[in-house]
């Protein structure tokens, strides 16, 4: 008479307990010469240090990308990348894009139809015709 254990691995529920920011790296690319990088360069000079200090969990990389439009590239824990082109944007608009990438989960954008997604079983249970009594049999 033995009970055996079935092997299982615990599943992550980010935010229950600890929260891990999913963006792990932001790469800022700019061009020294071209005018489309003007806002980006101003952002790097004036805002980036504060931004990095506010987000200690994100690795910040700055590198030139000559003769191209400026971009911000976010790398995520799910091994995906998101790239946003910030050509001709002003400083605050660049900041907005950086925050957008920081807050993203890295997943593909998909339509969420259910209001709640959960690993837990339903608290209310599943309706059963064998357990409902009297008139309630037909009430769902």
């Amino acid at each position, binding site marked *: 008479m033995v009970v055996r*254990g079935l092997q299982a691995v615990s599943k992550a529920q980010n935010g229950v307990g600890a929260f891990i920011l999913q963006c792990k790296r932001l790469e800022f690319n700019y061009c020294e010469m071209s005018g489309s990088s003007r806002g980006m360069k101003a952002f790097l000079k004036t805002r980036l240090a504060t931004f990095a200090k506010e987000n200690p969990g994100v690795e910040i990389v700055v590198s030139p990308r000559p003769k191209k439009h400026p971009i911000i590239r976010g790398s995520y824990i799910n091994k995906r990348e998101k790239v946003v082109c910030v050509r001709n944007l002003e400083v605050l608009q660049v900041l907005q894009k950086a925050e957008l990438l920081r807050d993203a989960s890295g997943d593909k954008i998909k339509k969420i139809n259910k209001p709640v997604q959960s690993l837990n079983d339903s608290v209310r249970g599943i309706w059963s015709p064998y357990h409902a009594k009297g008139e309630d049999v037909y009430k769902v």
Partner: protein
Amino acid sequence: MRRVSRSTWDSLTVPRRCVCGHPIRLNDLLSSSFSTSSSSSSSSSSLSPASPSPSRPSSIPTIRSKPQTTRPFSTTPSLAVIPSLLPTQSAKLAALHGRLELPNKYPLATLGRALIDPTAESEHHLNNDGLSNLGNVLLGYYTSEYLMVQYPRLPYEILKTAMNGYIGPEALAAVGTGWGVEAAFAPGETVDPGLLQFNRVAPGTPMYKVQGGVGFNIPRKRNKMVPNFENNPSVDAALADETPGMKAAREAQRSGQDATTLHLAMASFVRATVAGVYLHAGGLPATKEFVHAHVLSRKLDINRLFQFEQPTRELSRLCVREGFQQPIARLEKETGRYSRHAVFIVGVYSGEEKLGEGQGSSLPEAKIKAAISALKGWYLYSPVTGADLPSKTDGHPGLPFSPAVVDVGDVVS
């Protein structure tokens, strides 16, 4: 622009020490030209608050004029893994530190050391072996305590499985991957300290040869408990499929050289990180908080870990042991007995009290499911008010404490 933007020149003037106090030599960085020019800049104010070493008085010479050929406390002259980038200079490592919200008391050097697997660096004071052992004990302490207080009647086998589900190598590897830790392709001097370094198992190596590896990737003969892998035709057949490149890699790996898999190395890193929290960030209370936040907050359905062999018989024995009346299965509802889709609802009763209920497409199936439900109801008992975890009093011995229920255990016979 790095986030920790300290120049190499400044960093050279600071004596680096690893966690246990042994100086880490910077063979590759130190040269005579460096030592002459950088002697003036003795003050190094680290931007990172988690600077691993206290600044020395300037009277102590911190730069050796001539690079030593061997390290003190070192048995081998080669400096295999210590990267040329210092832990405090790695943006990846600092980001990992920030992502885990580790306190400033937790030095980057310890986190960097936790990322070095024993298979990458055999020097004991440079790898995470000791930290990992300590972390394993701490994780086992908090997980077993949590499970035993939460489910006092869990059978031993299920307790072991649940422990494995929370802190087994697979689960801890998933934790580490969820932290965004990446692995270096191969260990070496030039690797960023923020990457996990370990020696990979050569492709084609059977899993049973990997230390701590689980499972066999080679089909075994039935009824043969200890297969002979060395002279086994099925092993030879599996190895015959390998390409010349794989074979060369496998044979290039010396027999005594350790290698491990990404999962095992990642699990070992997570254990070492927990140990670092214990050592630097406030002892047991902080460790408990960390383990509960990162490991025990994950979802594991204990309900689905059970596999009974003879549930009806076990329920019967349980009722004898506990002095209940013998369980009787009663048909409660049924529909379509003579159709293709019959449904039977069977309740199992001990006297007047209903112990469990099951639904099945045949009477025996429903009866067995009812017994399983009754047994799970017994084994998964959890105190309603929630008993205190004994570790509550770890940092605060004066706190009021209500002891946990200790059950007589699972049914034996």
